[in-house]
């Protein structure tokens, strides 16, 4: 297991290096000078040259990339200040430290993910299992049909509708906003209830359908029938024998979703006007802010890779056959 983790972590670092390199070089393929952003409106060629020098853009791209990588590992001096490791550079747009900006934005994104995931996992898996248990019944038809309808909704459509209905028209809930949980847990909760619910609604549909189909598949397995043949009770067989096998495809998708959500639920954050990582990613891409774009990208990638490793470890935990290889 330890060897596996070391091997996978090493692999993940290689992938991160590759991602950063590709992003870095692709950015310079865009036919627009990133220095224009920092130079401002009344930019003269002389001023532009100064900005170039300040931002290090006068150097060859591979050299710039080398400085960038060294900065991540050891920190570096940049634009007249020191940027401690892990130094992801400073924004071209506003001169702020990329790493600390990301850290500022991260709690919101994390809160969104955790709250949403708890809801969609409980509701989605529960509904899916119930539908599988009563396959063909009215419950099953309602859950399956409902999830099909819900899965075709979009956050940017459902979100404003919910806000309109529950906040603006009736005032039952609060406008989505973010308060750190350490400041005021109640405000944290009430501000995020709507984003959680809307996000979870969309995701629940997917998890209901997947949990239902993989549960039905498992219930037809011979070992499930064999467990019934030895007199184990129906709920025991359902949870001990069938459920365990049905988790594998769910863990796979969950790993991808959580990784993606930690990298920023862009649509959710923009729909509810919340300033998290996803919002940061979108803004920095639009502003052609290389350090910020690259920083967010690496940060998100790191989470997706981390979740992948965790998922693989979970496989081994669920299925003993995986442990040997």
């Amino acid at each position, binding site marked *: 297991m330890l060897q596996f983790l070391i091997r996978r972590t090493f692999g993940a670092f290689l992938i991160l290096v590759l991602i950063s390199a590709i992003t870095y070089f692709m950015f310079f393929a865009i036919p627009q000078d990133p220095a224009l952003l920092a130079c401002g409106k009344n930019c003269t060629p002389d001023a532009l040259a100064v900005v170039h020098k300040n931002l290090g853009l006068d150097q060859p791209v591979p050299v710039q990339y080398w400085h960038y990588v060294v900065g991540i590992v050891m920190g570096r001096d940049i634009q007249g200040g020191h940027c401690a490791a892990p130094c992801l550079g400073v924004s071209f747009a506003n001169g702020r430290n990329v790493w600390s900006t990301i850290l500022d934005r991260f709690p919101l994104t994390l809160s969104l993910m955790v709250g949403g995931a708890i809801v969609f996992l409980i509701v989605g898996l529960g509904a899916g299992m119930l539908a599988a248990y009563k*396959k*063909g019944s009215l419950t099953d038809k309602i859950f399956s049909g409902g999830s099909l309808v819900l899965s075709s909704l979009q956050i940017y459509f459902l979100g404003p509708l919910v806000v309109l209905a529950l906040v603006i028209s009736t005032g039952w809930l609060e406008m989505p906003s973010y308060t750190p949980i350490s400041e005021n847990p109640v405000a944290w909760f009430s501000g995020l209830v709507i984003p959680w619910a809307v996000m979870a609604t969309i995701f629940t549909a997917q998890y209901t359908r997947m949990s239902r189909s993989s549960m039905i598949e498992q219930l037809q*397995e*011979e*070992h*499930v*029938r*064999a*467990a*019934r*043949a*030895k*007199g*184990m*009770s*129906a709920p025991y067989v359902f949870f*001990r*024998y069938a459920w*365990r*096998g049905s988790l594998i495809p769910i863990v796979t998708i969950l790993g991808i979703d959580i990784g993606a959500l930690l990298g920023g639920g862009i649509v959710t954050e923009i729909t509810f006007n919340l300033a998290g990582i996803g919002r940061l990613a979108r803004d920095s891409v639009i502003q052609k802010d290389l350090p910020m774009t690259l920083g967010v990208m690496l940060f998100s990638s790191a989470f997706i890779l981390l979740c992948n490793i965790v998922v693989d470890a979970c496989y081994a935990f*669920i*299925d*003993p*056959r995986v442990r040997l290889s």
Partner: protein
Amino acid sequence: MTTLTKPEDAPAPTASESFLSVRDLNVRFSTEGGIVKAVNGLSFDLERGKTLGIVGESGSGKSVTNLSILGLHAPETTTVEGEIWVDGQDVTDLSRKQLEGLRGNKISMIFQDALTALSPYYTVGRQIGEPFRKHTGASKSEARARAIEMLGKVGIPDPKNRVDDYPHQFSGGMRQRAMIAMALVCNPSLLIADEPTTALDVTVQAQILDLLKDLQQEFGSAIILITHDLGVVANTADDILVMYAGRAVERGTTREVLKSPQHPYTWGLLSSMPGLSGDVDEPLRPIPGTPPSLLNPPSGCPFHPRCEFVDLVGGSACSTERPALPAGRGSACHLTAEQKRQVFIEKIQPRLG
């Protein structure tokens, strides 16, 4: 829910009669294509300590019959009619809880493929111990000790260490042994073995069959051995029931059925087995045609479209009138006893080599 209907006037067998007694069993599945008549009017008896071989092609209703004895059919789509008396108790009348108490305890089952029938997620020891804990109320450590004992009994070397292995760490033959240990852990009075050796190679097959015989002598269980391999029943079963299209078409003792078979379908089964002593160049003789669809079984004798002796009967009896299976030794066929004997001696026996 399962629909259970039972003729009111059917006399209930008393305890002195057979241990297992199946009376006029009908099993129907409703599918999208219509109603599948999987088992039709099946009756048979089995005493303690005896082995009944049920033989037939795939889809002849062998497995379905036995799943209904355990009540393991899918209740939404299956209808079971008739009576299944086990030790003086009609299991078709039992509640789900009562059935659960019976399964793995008084009646247990060995599945065909132990690789799929054992859960990959739990250790062999745990899976063997589970029904023991459930049915006897034993503690975890007692169940573990019992699992070790059972693994030793079925011939797993070093059971103390192998008890914590997962099924994928066992070889095919060992898995089947573990499966048998799991079925026998509560000393069942009735053991249903559904093709227990089909997935194994021939040398292991013989070992497993010997093991079943030994364990039967030790526990005095009744065994139903489902197979399509007449070689397997020849060595193991006391009685044979031949099934075709969801019906019993011939029954008798093993010796009777194998030495003087009466039904053309049994002849076909016997002829299609390659004889070891026979000529190498002798072609195999499969039964012509394919098993009938049970959605829409043939009229009259279900075997008549594939039977080569229809002309001997003459008239249209074979395609219009279904021959009955007499109680005791006999076969469901319109041929006269004399014709059966003659055809077997003249035409069939030479083929068997």
